């Protein structure tokens, strides 16, 4: 330190900090130990278990008809829900940021409901509304639409659970977006839709993609609400997380691990993509 007096003068912070290195190392160590024990170690246990009997066993665990159908159902419903969220979430965020109307504050609060209400409770609430013995559920049933214990119920539950994601990523970007360009487009005679498509949409697209990926990842793993509304019929309405639960209950640990690894790999890829997108946005802001 004394060999670089200039550096020292420039960085009194660093020298002050260095005077208590054990504090820093203590905190680093705590962070590593805590995350290592709570997150890294359990993840490696699943990897070890899933591949414990080799790749061929892993493959056969996945291609068995029930597992495959469960995985397909989970991915299809997640895709549907993500598409709806991309549209409705963006629309909701746009309406919340750009328009004034009575009840706006209330709407803004209600949107956070799925973050606060237990997912199992969401499932019970949906059964209370759409269950075959309820007024609305019975009416829908008589018109040939079965919601509860069927795929529409799964989609509905996922829509409730993931509704806030796109809104909460798009909202701040819309708020910070320059309104000058938008107004210029209006003044030049562009319609509302044209303005939105050519001026607003390009700005918020990264945020829409981020929110959509987050809601997709959330939909892949959802359990609490689905286990109540889906009916969990193998090959029909059994989703991947409920399949994993079934395998654990019937002591088939390797089967549970194999499906877990697949789901983990999927959502891990999504999270990494989101991080990458957000990092890219941040550097865009910094340079622009």
């Amino acid at each position, binding site marked *: 330190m004394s060999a670089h007096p200039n550096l020292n003068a420039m960085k009194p912070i660093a020298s002050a900090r260095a005077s208590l290195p054990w504090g820093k190392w203590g*905190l680093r160590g705590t962070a590593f130990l805590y995350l290592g024990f*709570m997150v890294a170690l359990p993840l490696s246990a699943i990897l070890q278990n899933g591949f414990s009997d080799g790749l061929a066993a892993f493959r056969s665990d996945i291609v068995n008809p029930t597992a495959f159908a469960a995985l397909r159902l989970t991915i299809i419903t997640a895709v549907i829900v993500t598409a709806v969220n991309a549209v409705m979430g963006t*629309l909701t965020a746009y309406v919340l940021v750009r328009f004034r109307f009575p009840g706006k504050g209330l709407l803004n609060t209600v949107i956070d409901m799925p973050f*606060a209400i*237990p*997912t199992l409770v969401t499932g019970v609430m949906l059964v209370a509304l759409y269950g075959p013995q309820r007024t609305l559920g019975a009416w829908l049933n008589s018109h040939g639409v079965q919601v509860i214990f069927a795929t529409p119920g799964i989609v509905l539950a996922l829509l*409730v659970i993931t509704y806030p994601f796109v809104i909460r990523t798009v909202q701040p970007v819309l708020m910070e977006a320059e309104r000058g360009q938008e107004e210029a487009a209006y003044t030049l005679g562009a319609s509302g839709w044209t303005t939105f498509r050519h001026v607003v949409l390009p700005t918020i697209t990264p945020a829409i993609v981020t929110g959509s990926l987050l809601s997709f990842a959330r939909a*892949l793993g959802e*359990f609490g609400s689905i286990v109540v509304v889906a009916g969990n019929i193998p090959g029909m309405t059994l989703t991947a997380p409920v399949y994993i639960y079934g395998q*654990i209950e019937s002591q088939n640990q390797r089967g549970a691990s194999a499906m877990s690894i697949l789901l983990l790999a999927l959502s891990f890829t999504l999270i990494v993509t989101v991080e990458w997108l957000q990092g890219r946005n941040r550097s865009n802001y910094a340079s622009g």
Partner: protein
Amino acid sequence: MPQVENRRAQKRRSPSRLGEWALIAIVVLYAAGLLLAPLIAIVWGSLAEGLSAFAREMTSPDAISSLKLTMEMAVAATAINTLFGVCIAWVLVRDNFWGRRILNGLVDMPFAVSPVIAGFMLILLFGRTGWFTPLTDALGIKVVFALPGILLATVFISLPFVIREVAPVLSHVSIEQEDAAFTIGASRLLTFWHVTLPAIRWGLLYGVSLTFARAVGEIGAVLVVSGGVSRLTETSTLFIFRSLDDRNYVGANAMAVLLAAISFVILLVIELLKKRTEQTQTV
């Protein structure tokens, strides 16, 4: 010509105002149908059974003990994650070292992992043939199918909230103030207590309430770990799950309404805190 222009402008404005209201109506109806209708249905449903049925279900020993356990687990998990969360947020924001990015990635993992998988991981570590079972057996501790397992599961699934809320606020806190305090002789702990903590308090409380809400409502991880064997290890969500299995719909609905009410209180706190954090960040 100017008149025509004028009329066209007026014409354009009135349909766009109409379009605006149409968009608002779509959003309000969608949100109400998706979020409020099921809520009204369940409250209506439990009121239809009568308040006495609600009270009877909620004062049963099982319901009370499950609520107590849920609160204990949520408070303990929130305390643990607050303590470690602030440490980790500090390390991620203020410290620069090899492996920081790995830590950062690990923090997000609980959001990427299905809760069922989270519970399953604990079974693989502490279950009958688990990695740590010889150790815990030797110490005489039962983890899985017991309270420590439920606590570990709850801690895992609610781990990222405090870190993710505190880190951005912490990066806004100027190092100068901390250093000023430090230079005039305050110890690290004193500096943290009197300078850093007040600056991050709203973000921290926001993270704490999100953690608590998530901890109260967890089912997947807790269901796997509790094994559903004993009523001693039954949280409120497990109570609902078992009641549904036993076709005790009145009990399930009553507890669901109660948990929804608790989440509403937390939600209101969160909204208040969000306003405060936004204010402090803009100042």
